[in-house]
């Protein structure tokens, strides 16, 4: 009995202390900054993922420099962290809160509903077509960019065997695959594409073993859309003969990972998109509640410049790009559309 009363005393004293601290904290915590404020919540990949989150953060940093926007980021460790992280920024009344990645497609509408006066942005999801009034949904026409990567691969291969390594086989990553295969088919019908999925976005070893199998089987160009798994592809291609085996990067220019073996990269300019939309929101040129599907026209996608692509290849790539912009080629988004593609 004695022990219990002692415990109760401890607990109550902690509570009293807590009450005291909380009032003092509220006074000091609110600094009233008048400027435009941006918050960015990453998915579980973290800020330095050499990929998606990192480029998004680049865009935010550019906004800080050029637009004098106050920026802050929160990294999510688990899927359950998305809602509290978004809420934290929303309660600070940040003007735009960016969420990077399709993993946010359930949390965003939930939080947006609770804070109708705060603007949210989500990258890589159209929220199933139902975009709340205070949300901007941004997607990219990855299939079109991947199509160009397919063209570059098809015109570079000597063995007519091309590889594709995907991350988790979700609709988004299938979009990359469909576009890429269509591009190969359009530029070089004789070439075959081998497809493999790592079912992970982080397993570097798996990426390397998939790449090794493909190269050993005669494949000489591999494109990946697999986040961190792709590092394994670059680790593997580096060990092989220069000028014969190639890797194609994704999301950002990945040539630094294997300078002599990177044919090019399919660049998704998430940073430009985040910067432009933040700017338009700040200047009140853009209303929320929209879905923006960005492509070549907005200069949101493209192949990274590379000395390894011959001029002929570059010319062909440009030709196809113009055809897509004009609407002469309709790039397939999924497997069904790919089947009916020419």
């Amino acid at each position, binding site marked *: 009995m004695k022990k219990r009363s002692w415990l109760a005393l401890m607990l109550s004293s902690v509570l009293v202390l*807590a009450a005291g*601290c*909380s009032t003092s*904290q509220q006074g000091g915590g609110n600094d009233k900054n008048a400027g435009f404020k941006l918050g960015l919540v990453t998915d*579980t990949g973290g800020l330095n993922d050499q990929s998606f989150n990192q480029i998004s953060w680049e865009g935010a940093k550019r906004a800080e420099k050029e637009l004098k926007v106050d920026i*802050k980021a*929160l*990294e999510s*460790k*688990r*899927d*359950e*962290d998305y*809602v*509290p*992280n978004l*809420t*934290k920024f929303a*309660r600070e009344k940040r003007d735009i809160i960016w969420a990077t990645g*399709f*993993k946010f*497609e*359930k949390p965003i509408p939930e939080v947006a509903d*609770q804070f109708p006066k705060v603007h949210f942005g989500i990258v890589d*999801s159209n929220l*199933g077509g139902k975009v709340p009034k205070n949300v901007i949904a941004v997607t990219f026409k990855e299939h079109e960019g991947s199509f160009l990567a397919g063209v570059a691969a098809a015109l570079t291969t000597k063995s007519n065997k091309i590889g594709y390594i995907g991350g*988790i*086989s*979700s*609709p*988004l990553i299938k979009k990359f695959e469909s576009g890429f295969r269509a591009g190969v088919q359009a530029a070089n019908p004789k070439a075959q594409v081998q497809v493999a999925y790592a*079912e*992970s*976005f*982080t397993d570097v070893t798996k990426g390397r073993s998939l790449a090794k199998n493909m190269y050993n089987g005669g494949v000489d160009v591999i494109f990946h859309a697999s986040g961190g798994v792709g590092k394994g592809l670059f680790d593997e291609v580096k060990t092989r003969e220069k000028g014969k085996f190639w890797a194609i990067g994704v999301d950002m220019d990945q040539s630094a990972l294997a300078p002599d073996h990177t044919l090019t990269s399919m660049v998704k300019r998430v940073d430009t998109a985040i910067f432009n939309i933040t700017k338009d929101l700040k200047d009140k040129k853009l209303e929320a509640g929209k879905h923006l599907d960005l492509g070549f026209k907005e200069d949101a996608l493209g192949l990274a410049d590379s000395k390894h692509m011959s001029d002929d290849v570059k010319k062909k790539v440009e030709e196809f790009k113009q055809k897509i912009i004009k609407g002469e080629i309709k790039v397939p988004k999924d497997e069904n559309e790919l089947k009916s593609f020419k």
Partner: protein
Amino acid sequence: MSQLNKQSTIVTALISIFLAMIIGSIAMQVAGYNPFAAYQALFVGSLFQAFDLGETIRTTTPLILTGLAVAIAFRTGLFNIGVEGQMIVAQLASLLVGIKLNLPPVLHMIVAVLVGGIAGAIWGFIPGFLKAVRGVNEVIICIMMNFIALYLSNVLVRNWLSEQGTDSTPKIPESASLRVDFLSEMFDSSRVHLGIIIALIMAFVMYILLWKTKRGYELRAVGYNPSAAEYAGINVKRNIILSMVISGFFAGLAGAGELLGTQGYMAIQSAFTGIGFDGIAVALLGANTPIGVILAALLFGVLTYGSQNMEHVAQVPPELIRVVVAAIIFFVAANISGILLGAVKKKRRAKES
């Protein structure tokens, strides 16, 4: 004697936490951060506002249940490292009940929770059964079962349950949700849910079961010494299986709570959440007692949820809190082995004299 031991576990835990926090602050100092600001942000950010307190309780809820799951297996001399997988199958089962069945509100929720618990129990039964009947090491099977659960759920979510064009399932309807208005309102619309009440009830159930029933005595006897228990006429195999089933049931409730209360949907996962593995640390720190598990889970809940705020307010990376967590485990484990050694020595001396 038992009184003495109990006290020393609380003391061990407190000393370990204290030492670990010192280690953590040294790490922060070395990395160039202010440890006082960091700890202040950690505790202020997790406890002092209704929303944050609610989210801390939400983080604590599954930790209590996974802690209990590990603890009850420990009591029977088993190491259930498969809590993670048991949670995942439970989430899957609860989700199926949630979106495929049409039931009236309260009943729907109860059925979904129970089915989740049972799914976890079945996932715990398999390693328990193999351990008891075939003598296979339960640790290895549990780890394998974790991967089966993870990838099975990914395949099912992707090919069967996901909405067109996404990689996550639809949300469960209100009728199956563990979230209730009065709790959400009390905590400033945070995601705290009825799972916390389930968790506390289960802690009580475990106490009654282990210390107030004959069955519980048998379970503990098997944990102390299986050979002696068998000699005394206790069916060791049955108790091993039972222990894993109960353990799996607790883990299943943790999964059901996460799905029906916190997330409301399932997405393709590329890795484990780690809540099940944290349960091992919770059980260890809580000395495998229900009260200890609740307190330890609360501490881990505060550390986990508060570390996010630490990053937000004091710019200290939350990884440093994992250093503190690891240090706590380290100190507790080291001390426990010390106590055990001491106890063994004393027994020997008693025998000799």
